């Protein structure tokens, strides 16, 4: 279904087992540049584990991940961040004691150049020296990034800007999710993985978030989305993938997947009617 020959991200036979449980079971997936694919499925279906495998936080037992034609299987998360893969976390992992500004600046860490010379061996020492001395180039870079952060925060209206110097732990739950997304955007990602960005949000907030993701898609960002709220999934997704017990049980355009008997059975079988109701 992906028309392009060179997918941006492709997973082949990706498998991860925990003891007797196979959390991700031989998953294949191709994601084209500019495409938005949603992954849905009941809790425990292996969606977040799949994200962890793609972003390097976990290593697969079998299978391969390639990104823009390169094999990235088992690379460290910090390498993958440098390659331009950014993600948000299901439970919201902001840096609690850092201000909103600092949280988002961390997102831009991989783009630091002036203060992080690419010199082998003594690079880290140079980085510390430059951080202490702060020549004009370093100051200018920092200033530029701060302006960028403000621009990113402005996309969330008045939600975050007035709180820019507050520590993240003092923010509301929804605002922490926004900070996470802002942090991911600060990385200027080529691939963005969003893990339930609207969890815990009320309908108004969900609608705002949906609008933002739609904007990002329009801007050409390639996105992999885990989401329970089916209405949002249907509106945004180019394709939908349904996972259950680690396996991919359906794939295709939203409407087709929605009416797939296997999908209905998987949801009903797990008794997760509440989510369907909330999504309806």
């Amino acid at each position: 279904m992906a028309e392009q020959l060179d997918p941006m991200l492709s997973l082949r036979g990706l498998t991860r087992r925990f003891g007797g449980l196979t959390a991700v079971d031989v998953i294949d997936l191709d994601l084209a540049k500019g495409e938005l694919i949603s992954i849905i499925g009941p809790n425990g279906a292996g969606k977040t584990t799949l994200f962890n495998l793609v972003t390097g936080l976990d290593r697969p037992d079998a299978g391969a991940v390639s990104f823009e034609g390169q094999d990235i299987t088992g690379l460290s998360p910090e390498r993958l961040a440098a390659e331009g893969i950014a993600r948000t976390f299901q439970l919201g992992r902001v840096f609690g004691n850092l201000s909103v500004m600092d949280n988002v600046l961390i997102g831009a860490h991989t783009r630091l150049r002036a203060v992080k010379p690419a010199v082998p061996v003594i690079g880290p020492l140079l980085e510390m020296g430059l951080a202490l001395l702060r020549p004009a180039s370093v100051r200018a870079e920092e200033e530029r990034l701060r302006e960028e952060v403000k621009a990113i925060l402005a996309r969330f209206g008045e939600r975050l800007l007035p709180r820019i110097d507050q520590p993240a732990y003092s923010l509301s739950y929804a605002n922490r999710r926004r900070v996470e997304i802002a942090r991911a955007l600060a990385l200027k990602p080529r691939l963005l993985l969003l893990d339930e960005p609207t969890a815990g949000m009320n309908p108004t907030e969900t609608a705002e978030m949906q609008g933002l993701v739609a904007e990002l898609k329009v801007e050409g960002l390639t996105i992999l989305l885990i989401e329970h709220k089916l209405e949002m999934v249907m509106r945004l997704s180019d394709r939908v993938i349904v996972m259950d017990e680690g396996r991919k049980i359906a794939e295709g355009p939203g409407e087709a997947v929605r009416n797939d008997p296997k999908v209905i059975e998987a949801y009903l079988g797990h008794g997760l009617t509440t989510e369907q109701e909330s999504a309806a």
Partner: protein
Amino acid sequence: MSSWLDYTINGLIVGNVYALVAVGLALIFGVSRLINFAQGSIYLVGAYIGWVAVVQLHTPLPLTILVVAVAAALVGLIIERFGLRPLQNSVRIAPLLATIGISFVLDQLVMLTFSPNPRALPSQLPDVRFQVGNGTIGPLDLLIAGVGITSALLLFVFLRYSKLGWAVRATAQDRDAAMQMGVDVNRVNQAVFGIAAALGGVSGMLVGMYYNQIDTAMSLQATLKGVVAEVVGGAGNVPGAVIGSLLLGLVESYGVAVFGTSYRNLFAFLLLVVVLVLRPNGLFASARQAPPEPLTGTFIAPSRPVRIPRWALLVAAGGFAILPLFPVSFYVLQTLINAWLLGMLALSLTLVAGTIGQVSLGHAALLAIGAYTSALLSLTLSVPVGLAIIGGGLMSAALGTLLISPSFRLRGHYVSIATLAIGEIVSLVILNWESVTRGPIGISGIPPLSLFGYDLISPTSIYWFSLAVMVVLALLQARLLGSHLGRSFRAIRDDDIAARAYGLSLNRYKSLAFIFGGFAAGVSGGIAAHLYSYINHETFNTQQSILALTVVILGGLGNVVGAIVGSVALVGLPEVFRLAAEYRILIYGIVLLLLVRFRPQGLLGTI
């Protein structure tokens, strides 16, 4: 060779003794995820209650055991109720510090009640010996083994099959879920502390009888060896603690066999570091065990640091700078010199423990490396003292970072234990590497402080010198914290997984923090060496590490000004309490407890 049989038996015998403490520690860790540094103090209390029972009341052995078990369990319950339960919803580091404070208080109370002189605690068992190998074992060996193994088995059965045991395990796995399921978590904690304390008390008494000797210094050693054994076996794993203890005993015994007595503890701590690096959850932890720390940054208290206006800092710095111009006694200046030296160490520790979250319990090792380097450079190579001190700082930065790097992959309490072990290893290497460090004789005749050819020997000049060095280090650190490194370090502390996902390499930034912090600590050690003119392996000891950590907590983790305020307070307070000579450590322990209870984020707050 028949000797190997003897070494093996001896290793098992002493392992037996370690197991008694380790089982109690494992039980508490299993439920509370807490390393109870007061376990050795309960062991001490048990030994002295046993002494009262045996020597004063002439109780028979079964009654003695009962008396000690009940009394120690009571102590455990009191600790749980008044020391730890109020900290339930506090940050995870608070109970750890509270147990350190409690151990100070208990040890001092025992010392004040019974005097520090060692006492004989006669065994109440018949003195028959059984020939095993070329040595003999006695009934106490069998009793200790019996108590150790039986208690481990009973605990295992209790945890598996009883209702309360089920509640304990449920609490261990997920406290909140257990509470929602109707488990009375407080009752579980009480049960666990009662049992662990009873076991700790009885073991102190048995070990006292075993050696026919009890004294107030036995507490810290028991805790240290118990923690090593417990972590080797897999923290929280009761049968694992027994096996870990036996393994520790064997490794020590074989270490003595091959290299000699003075290498004994070196092997104990090396074993710990190797196990932590290769199998961070211990040798016998099940693979599916939940990660030992919650995944988000609740290890450190969220807080709003107190913002001190710049002018106030300038006024304070200026005030201290001109202090010697007033008629102030040299004693006050010397006390403040100590505070400035401790302040440099605290700056270092507040960076690694506070800013990047690696709570180090072995920080005195960095002082020692700096001190020895600077002393030897100036003595043997005639390097000018000023340069030698910088050399000490650089060596401490490089070597310290290298030594601590194996612990970079660890998290939470495991970092503390690994750094504690690394600190001990450094001290033991200094003791044994005689060709360089002159071993226990130490280094004497270290030249006094001097700068550009001028000797700094008056207290006033030393005061200015150490104040200036500390202020420069503090300013540098403040500048570092204001850079992208500051936020990177703090991000790693708050959530290392999210930090990695945004491209922050843990090894790189933890190394940088230790390099920067190691330099400050090394400089402090170097200055101290030239100030004291004599150092040996005991000069920079574990107490120093614990003091530095207390300073850092007092001031507020990661807080530069807080580290200095904390140093002045903790050097000054014991001096103020000098009038109360014997009571001052007791007072110090109580102050620590109150602090943890009422202001866990420190005086000036975490940054």
